[in-house]
């Protein structure tokens, strides 16, 4: 399963370098280039981590969805490996959303938590994909693990729009305090540039993490196979 493909290795190394470079540039943009926000001050800069984390999370869970379907269709372990790798990364970034959210909220709204649509959604999402990871932990048999989590991966992702719809309706009925100068309200062009660059870098970071995690999983699978053969 592990091929020492020279071109693949070179490309990945290139990717690693670009991720590193990109993050450094991103940090500069976020802390130096982007202007200070009028009402919230420097705290607002968390926004450039918070939103891209949310985006990466969604992207990761979408990957889980697609590769879950692929696994049930083709039954090849490689699809399952991608799915679990993406799920783990998704959970990490969802955690980031749930951490940066309160860190931002505290100085701005004087409260650690608000049931905003995004935060509520990510709380539910976090639980769905943690459930995915727990399911994998408590099922025996590689093939079963892959099959069950593929089904749950599909159900979980399809649930996302429905969860979002219900949260929106809930918020309409129980509105949260209106936040002045919220994130949507008119971004300065420099802010927009920073945001888009951050989104871009985070996406590249996602793919880099995904590749590393997939490699790790492949090694783990190979080791387990060797162990099994030795025991036999």
């Amino acid at each position, binding site marked *: 399963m592990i091929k020492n493909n020279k071109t693949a290795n070179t490309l990945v190394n290139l990717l690693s370098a670009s991720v590193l470079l990109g993050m450094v540039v991103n940090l500069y943009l976020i802390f130096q280039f982007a202007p200070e926000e009028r009402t919230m001050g420097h705290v607002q800069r968390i926004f450039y981590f918070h939103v891209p984390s949310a985006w990466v999370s969604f992207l990761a869970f979408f990957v889980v969805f697609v590769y879950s379907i692929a696994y049930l269709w083709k039954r090849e372990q490689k699809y399952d490996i991608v799915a679990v790798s993406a799920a783990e990364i998704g959970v990490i970034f969802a955690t980031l959303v749930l951490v940066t959210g309160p860190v931002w909220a505290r100085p701005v709204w004087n409260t650690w938590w608000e049931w905003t649509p995004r935060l509520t959604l990510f709380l539910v999402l976090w639980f769905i994909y943690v459930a995915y990871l727990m399911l994998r932990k408590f099922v025996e048999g*590689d*093939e079963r693990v892959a099959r069950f989590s593929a089904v749950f991966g599909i159900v979980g992702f399809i649930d996302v729009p429905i969860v979002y719809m219900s949260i929106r309706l809930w918020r309409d009925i129980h509105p949260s305090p209106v936040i002045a100068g919220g994130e949507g309200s008119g971004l300065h062009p420099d802010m927009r540039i920073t945001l888009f660059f951050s989104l871009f870098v985070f996406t590249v970071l996602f793919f880099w993490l995904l590749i590393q995690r997939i490699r790790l999983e492949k090694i783990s*699978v190979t080791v387990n*196979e060797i162990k*099994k*053969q030795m025991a*036999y």
Partner: protein
Amino acid sequence: MTPNVERCAAVSTHRLSKTFGAQYALRNVDLEVQAGEFVAIFGPNGAGKTTLIRILSTLTKATSGEVVIEGHPLNKDSGKIRCKIGVIGHQTFLYENLTAEENLKFYARLYRVKKANDRITQLLRDVGLETRRKDQVRTFSRGMQQRLSIARSLLHDPSLLLLDEPYTGLDQHASKMLTSWLTRLRERRQTTLMVTHDLERGVDLADRIAILVRGKVVFNDLRANVDRSAFRQVYYDLVEKHNRQR
């Protein structure tokens, strides 16, 4: 294998393989069961015997190879095949809360058995359980449950019977009954494939004997060609030889 033989065979597998990840449970198994034949398959634990039965009974899909049962290819006509096979395993497939009669009625309806009541009465009589017809299965001993399970598997008059270690957990008395039952079925020329640990009983009942070790068929011959007294040693030797190989 000439085409003529294939048409007569009740079960025929060609290079049947089943893998779990990188592990081979079955490796290129070529096996044939002729109509009316009683085939016994022996093998140590982990040989792939249960996997073989599960594939033949449509519970699991093979990874590669062809299987034809009663003229139907396994990967296409599993619905039709299920109508024609009966399975007896070490689990009884019986509902403890329900009576013997209710259990049989249930399966009769699932299998669309015609004139179910008559058939049920007949089978209960055959397995000696007609007096316990209205009793809940939870009150039955293991031997009685196994007998009811036999009745259950024969409800729809299957042309092929698959047995997976049917002697497991049976005491002497129940084992004797099972053997006499299987002997009766054999006399009726019921096509049967039985996997078992029990060398003596298997050899007595079989028309053909096969040995499975590590997923491979290492022995396959007519019972008539086998020296009964020497067979146990032959079995151990083969198992040892193939266990040592990788």
